């Protein structure tokens, strides 16, 4: 999928309408089946950029086109169809704790399945082989029938990625796919992800905290304070540029985990009142 951003700015949906956008106006083109890594310190606007590309966030200014179409001019049903061709994998794997792994993976097919077919698959899973082969590529085939809440954080993250392989999306937007994986698993996961996207002919946009992984991508976008700091082939991203990008955030450059407080804690939930 060809992506074109023209002065696109975006802000978090909960932010005040007159606040500074988390993503300042940015213009760039990503051609079909390109693979792009997005790096930058915490709060640089990486996730906001992904959400804007996923049509999950209405632009605050400027615009984007996907294959030449401005998604926000489409009627709701057409926009939803277009969203079926995008795959957004959030950093926290979106898996219901009591669901089984197979169901969670098969949920990747939902946009191209009729409601009846998807309900039928809840009664007895259809496409067991596909789900297993997707999980095999992430070294998780033995967890096919387990419940999600029996998995470790890293396993959940890989299940979330395996879902992408079942989608028929032509744009994959993956947010921090390696955040809870150990180095060897991370290597396997990113290799599988890039190879699978290439096989599917899909464009891959991937935010990363591991700069050594990111610089192996053909193209790297450096974001800082919501602005595009550089847009270079991975091989040309020098140590000097990285130091500039991560100035005052050096601990993140050294491979440390994202600073605590990266995502605000969920608001306390009101208890359900069991009376009438």
């Amino acid at each position, binding site marked *: 999928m060809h992506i074109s951003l023209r002065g696109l700015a975006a802000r978090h*949906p909960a932010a005040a309408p007159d606040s500074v956008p988390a993503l300042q106006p940015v213009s760039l083109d990503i051609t079909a089946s390109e693979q792009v890594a997005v790096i930058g310190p915490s709060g640089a606007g990486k996730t906001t950029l992904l959400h804007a590309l996923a049509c999950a966030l209405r632009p605050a200014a400027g615009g984007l086109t996907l294959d030449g179409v401005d998604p926000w001019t489409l009627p709701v049903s057409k926009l939803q169809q277009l969203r079926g*061709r*995008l795959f957004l994998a*959030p950093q926290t794997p979106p898996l219901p704790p*009591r669901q089984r792994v197979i169901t969670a993976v098969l949920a990747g097919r*939902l*946009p191209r399945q009729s409601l009846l077919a998807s309900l039928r698959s809840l009664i007895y899973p259809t496409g067991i082989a596909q789900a297993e082969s997707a999980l095999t590529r992430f070294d998780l085939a033995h967890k096919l029938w387990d419940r999600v809440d029996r998995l470790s954080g890293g396993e959940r993250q890989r299940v979330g990625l395996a879902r992408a392989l079942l989608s028929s999306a032509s744009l994959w937007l993956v947010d921090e796919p390696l955040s809870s994986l150990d180095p060897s698993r991370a290597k396997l996961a990113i290799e599988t992800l890039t190879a699978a996207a290439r096989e599917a002919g899909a464009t891959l946009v991937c935010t990363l905290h591991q700069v050594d992984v990111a610089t192996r991508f053909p193209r790297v976008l450096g974001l800082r304070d919501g602005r595009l700091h550089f847009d270079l082939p991975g091989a040309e991203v020098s140590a000097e540029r990285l130091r500039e990008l991560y100035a005052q955030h050096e601990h993140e450059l050294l491979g440390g985990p994202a600073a605590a407080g990266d995502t605000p804690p*969920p608001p306390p939930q009101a208890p*359900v009142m069991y009376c009438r």
Partner: protein
Amino acid sequence: MQEPAAAPALPSPRHRDPAWTGRVFWLLAAAVLVAPALVATEFKPWLLFEPDALKATRRFIADFLPPKIEGEFLWLVLVECWRTVAIATAGMALALVIAIPLTLISTNAISISALGGRMHTLPLFVRQATRWLLIVLRSIPELVWALVFVRVVGLGPTAGVLAIALTYGGMLGKVYGEILESDETHTTRTLLRNGAGRLQAFFYGLLPHSAPELTSYTVYRWECAIRSSAVLGFVGAGGLGQQMDNSMKMFQGSEVATMLIVFMLLVALADQVSAWLRKNLA
């Protein structure tokens, strides 16, 4: 109201309890609020212990003893008991038919237009209208519905079933909606953002999250429906209540006593079943 006067010298201001004034104020405020309510309801408990009242009470209770234990009558009570459970269960089934579609329409969590920021006007209006409908359904007590339906379909269990269906449909719809909204919506929203339909997102994201809570609330309501269907019998909607009403009007205290005991056993049993089900579902 005042600090103990026994203290020879007032303690220094630092040692005085700063919450004391507030506590006294709220105590007095509560009294001021309750007093008119007691006057309005002519609350005079001592009337219970006047000789006339005591005599009537004694006669009524004496009538209860011994409870009537007779093969044929016991069988009748058991049949009515079963009918009460049947009214409750059929009413709940119908209530679910009302509540589930209305919940699906009214819940914000599976809104597609809200993904882009704010929900569009039409879906917002439809959701709000559905919520109002639920409020109307549940704010009319089932007893009133039963009185209406006894006029419409005549004496008998049908009126009870319909009354429970309408009130409980509204109740279930509202609480289901609250359960779904209070759940975390990350999984559901991600499915919607990836292009899934509303119902697909419901079945693959929202339902697996909240199924235990929804089921447990449904079972609890079923238990409530059993108790309430016995009361509905008093206005002619069939079941144990109607039988109890008949016996009371005939001054058959021993029959009433038997039925009360059986009813207590029934409620205890439903309580146990419901607690067991909910424990195993959680």
